């Protein structure tokens, strides 16, 4: 049985009672000595990134894990962009039809139309990329932060204390998620607080392990 209260010393008639601190899972110490990783433009899973800053970051808050959706989740919009980029080339095959029209477009109109078209294609790709870029999960020694950017006018930032997380689980379903090793990590919080979910992130098993180690106060060497 651990001693909660112990007689430390007696000075004359005065009895000094020393109280041991209650052992709670302390936040891990600042990870200055740990190997830091650089976050590149396309990083999806980074341990101890040293170049991430976020809103309301505390001075003693150290980022342990930086998560993004797997890069393979970008394939649909990348393919769409490539298809849209190549679409005007079909105009070469439609040239005889265009020449047979009763009216003609001057070259100025054609130039403006092509520039405008490619600006729209670029805008489509850019918005999709920035949405993916900013849709992240951050695990620090104090909190778990979920930044959801779903489209150009919607963003949602949710955070919870590490101590409030009671359970961590991950799921991978389907051929692609197993092949490319991505999936969902679900964090259950206490009581009525909303649960957290990181969707389609890289290495979900590793992420779940790191988070559960953090909850338990164990240093993780994964």
């Amino acid at each position, binding site marked *: 049985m651990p001693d909660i209260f112990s007689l430390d010393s007696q000075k004359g008639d005065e009895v000094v009672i020393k109280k041991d601190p209650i052992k709670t899972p302390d936040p891990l110490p600042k990870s200055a000595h740990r190997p830091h990783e*650089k*976050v*590149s*433009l396309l990083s999806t899973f980074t341990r101890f990134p040293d*170049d*991430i*800053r*976020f*809103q309301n970051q505390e001075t003693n808050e150290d980022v342990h894990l930086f998560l993004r959706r797997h890069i393979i989740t970008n394939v649909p919009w990348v393919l769409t962009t490539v298809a849209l980029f190549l679409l005007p080339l079909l105009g070469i095959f439609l040239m005889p039809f265009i020449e047979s029209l009763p*009216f003609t477009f*001057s070259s*100025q*109109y054609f*130039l*403006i*139309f092509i*520039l*405008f078209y490619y*600006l*729209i294609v*670029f*805008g489509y790709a*850019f*918005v999709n990329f*920035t949405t993916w*870029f*900013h849709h*992240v999960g951050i695990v620090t020694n104090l909190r778990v932060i979920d*930044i959801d*950017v779903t489209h*150009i*006018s919607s*963003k949602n*930032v949710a955070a919870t204390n590490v101590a409030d997380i009671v359970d961590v689980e991950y799921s991978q379903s389907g051929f692609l998620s197993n092949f490319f090793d991505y999936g969902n990590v679900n964090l259950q919080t206490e009581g009525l607080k909303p649960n957290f979910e990181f969707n389609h992130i890289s290495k979900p098993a590793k992420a779940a392990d790191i988070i559960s180690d953090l909850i338990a106060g164990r240093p993780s060497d994964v």
Partner: protein
Amino acid sequence: MFDFTNFFTSDGFELGLKIFALFLIGFYMIFALIVFNHIRSLRRILVVSTAAGSPLIQTMNFFYLLATIFLFVLALVIL
């Protein structure tokens, strides 16, 4: 009385096309402004301070808006 049949000439068609093109690019400029503002606001939430991170995104964001404005001005001038 205004003769509407004038619009169905080649010049009328071109005028209609010009107005339509300017409206379209004008509206797209509003969309580009919304995107610009949105991405700028994301900089306050998350900063990836490597060179190929938030600085690159914000620079591209600026040039995207600039390109849209440039296209609108170009359309005004040459159409």
